[in-house]
């Protein structure tokens, strides 16, 4: 699934490790989500959306 997590993170000048800390997941998990290798669970997707104050579908695009 495509997503704009990398862009959102870069806009805030956050490292993958920092974002991982905020979401209580590892840096590897952030890396895998950003690269599109791993689709997060619904609870984690909600957590990400809440953190960036956006809707899930704004961050994640399941059309691709």
């Amino acid at each position: 699934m495509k997503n704009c997590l990398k862009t959102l993170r870069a806009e805030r000048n956050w490292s993958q490790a920092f974002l991982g800390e905020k979401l209580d997941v590892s840096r590897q998990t952030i890396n895998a989500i950003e690269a599109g290798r791993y689709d997060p669970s619904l609870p984690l997707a909600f957590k990400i959306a809440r953190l960036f104050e956006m809707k899930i579908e704004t961050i994640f695009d399941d059309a691709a």
Partner: protein
Amino acid sequence: MSQKQARRRYISIFIPSMAIYFSGTLGISLAAKYQSLPSIALYGLAIIPILALIAWMWAQWRYINELDEFLRMIEIKAVLVGVAGVMAIAAGWGIAEMLTDAPNLPVIWIVVIFSVLYGLAQMVITRREGADH
């Protein structure tokens, strides 16, 4: 709890439990070989490696629960590969023993085979999923 803390907690149980398992197994084997203990004592001592194995499995269970969802997925896949490998080897060798003159494979090797397969699978899956960078 961070992933690093979870890993440290796991290693702190895994290494001593494996040391107890292997030294206990070796000690009991030597005691049996040289008949230095009565057989009832050997049966009693055989509990030591079993307890060490249970401690390892408990630490593994706790570690998998403490990981985040992506790393947990990798661990579970690796454990499944280990279990599937052990079952395939045990069943295959068992059939070979039953139908041919294949030498007897002591059941004690199951732990070693599982550990090797699990470790290899963990390395391969971690690389494949890109969790190593």
